[in-house]
């Protein structure tokens, strides 16, 4: 069971944060923390495609929408378990969301991943819009009104104690965060991951060295879509309301900003950028009080993005990871 050691360590750290958030803060901060985890999932999964494999996907929100709508609809209409086991519904619908999104990723990816660069961007952009417009016109999921009344993840009654529903949501999101992180991290530190990188670096050379580039790209796309679908499911149970406009083009762009800002091909970068991008607009909310009611929030947000890109065009982390910086530091101090 040694493969669980590192994930367990990370999970314990996250649970500590969760406990602080649970007892020390209010519902607003708690909800924001769930969004942070959702965005981390989005950024990490998109980083696999855009950062590591070098394919430019602009339709990540589409996969997220699929996941969100599936999990929302399934948990509202097909509850398999009730009572204390109700949490299992969410486990199943979230998994289903991921699989549905992964399947969509396969269907979209197989034909479109022959395209490169801008062309792939347009196709994936088109996919995202198709999903959004389809949802807009599907009456059984509410059409433009969206789906409201999506159940939250319930309190967990362990018999001797009850874990509050926020903590359960946080733990559940943390589970997926840790899973996503280690799945991608370990793949990237294996021969398969090097295959992804080789596709980014030079497809012709990769093929000549025996890498099946089509298969590699589809794999990256499917895996990435899976976690986007999971992120969507977590998102819908956190907000209890989704509408097609929650998954518009802006959402895909947000994910791309996180990946680019963090550094294409850096997991720590994606995570840091996801935290930064999610929290910054929230932190800037209180600014209004000092500027006489004028909302400078988005101006500062955009300016800070421009500044970061000017000062560090390769992103906050470039292609390195926090662990690399640590190793360098240890080397230097020796």
């Amino acid at each position, binding site marked *: 069971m*040694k493969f669980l050691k590192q994930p367990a360590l990370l999970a314990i750290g996250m649970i500590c944060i969760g406990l602080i958030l649970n007892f020390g803060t209010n519902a607003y901060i708690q909800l924001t923390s769930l969004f942070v985890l959702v965005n981390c999932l989005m950024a990490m999964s998109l980083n696999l495609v855009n950062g590591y494999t070098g394919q430019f996907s602009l339709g990540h929100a589409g996969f997220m929408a699929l996941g969100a709508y599936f999990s929302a609809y399934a948990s509202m209409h097909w509850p398999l378990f009730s009572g204390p086991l109700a949490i299992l519904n969410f486990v199943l619908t979230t998994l289903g969301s991921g699989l549905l999104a992964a399947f969509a990723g396969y269907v979209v990816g197989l034909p479109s991943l022959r395209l490169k660069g801008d062309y792939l961007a347009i196709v994936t952009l088109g996919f995202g819009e198709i999903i959004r417009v389809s949802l807009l016109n599907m009456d059984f999921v509410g059409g433009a009104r969206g789906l409201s009344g999506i159940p939250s993840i319930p309190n967990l009654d362990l018999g001797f104690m009850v874990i509050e529903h926020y903590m359960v949501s946080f733990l559940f999101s943390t589970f997926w965060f840790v899973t996503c992180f280690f799945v991608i991290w370990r793949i990237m530190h*294996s*021969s398969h991951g090097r295959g992804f990188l080789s596709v980014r670096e030079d497809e012709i050379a990769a093929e*000549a060295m025996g*890498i099946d580039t089509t298969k590699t790209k589809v794999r990256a796309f499917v895996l990435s879509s899976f976690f986007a679908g999971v992120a969507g499911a977590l998102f819908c149970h956190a907000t209890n309301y989704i509408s097609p406009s929650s998954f518009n083009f802006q959402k895909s762009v947000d994910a791309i900003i996180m990946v680019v800002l963090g550094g294409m091909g850096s997991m720590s970068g994606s995570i840091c950028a996801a935290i930064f991008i999610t929290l910054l607009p929230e932190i800037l909310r209180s600014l209004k009080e000092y500027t006489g009611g004028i909302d400078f929030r988005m101006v500062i947000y955009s300016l800070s993005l421009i500044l970061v890109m000017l000062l560090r065009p390769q992103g906050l982390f470039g292609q390195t990871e926090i662990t690399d910086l640590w190793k360098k530091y240890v080397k230097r101090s020796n």
Partner: protein
Amino acid sequence: MSNAQTNSSNIILEAKNLTMQFGGLKAVDQFSFSIEKGQLAGLIGPNGAGKTTAFNMLTGVYMPTSGEVILNGEILNGKKPFQISHKGLTRTFQNIRLFKDLTVLENVLIAGHQHVSYGLLDTFLQNDRFEVEELKLRNKALEILALFGLADKAFENSCSLPYGEQRKLEIVRALMTDPKVILLDEPAAGMNHSETHKLMDLIAQIRKDFKLTVLLIEHDMKLVMGICEKIFVLDHGVKIEEGNAHHIQNSKKVIEAYLGVDEVH
């Protein structure tokens, strides 16, 4: 050199009437050749003769308009480049195509990916199978790198290597695929005399050590004439001559192709 002079049943790589047409241009026209196991062959010709196009057809980058490529008795037409690489035919590139942002070691490891049998799940479980194979791959890569004197640069970025070493790294990377036949596209391009000389020795050595068959494109006649046992000459896509160095050097057709025809006869 004499051990390569064996009978014709020993043919490992063969092309039959290979033709590549780009619109109205026949880049390669009815090119046939065969190379025996263990042979070191050269493909020469003036600029634009279709040498690299021929390489691209052999390795599946281009689909030949007509004709066949046969490796070990198996027809390679229609196979993708990565499948051809799995069959044991690999190449280097004229304009160096390293994975620039990756380290030297990573470059080599990528070429070993086709021999990896662990799956994605094994990487997540970090099981023995993953670790054993990863270690084996790494050791093998470092071994070949050491042979080329690149082991101490294994963790440097591949684009930070000097030009000559980048060329070497391309060969190392190709060797990591466990090839039977290796195609070298201008391995000595941009190298000075002494570097070229070292490269010649190296090519001869790896052929022996790895039991390779080598086909190389080269403009450096000293290198080609020095080590190639069999030379094919292409001009305007057509094979005009084939034979050993002595034969080629004295061929009127070859001299004409390179120097032009004397008008005053």
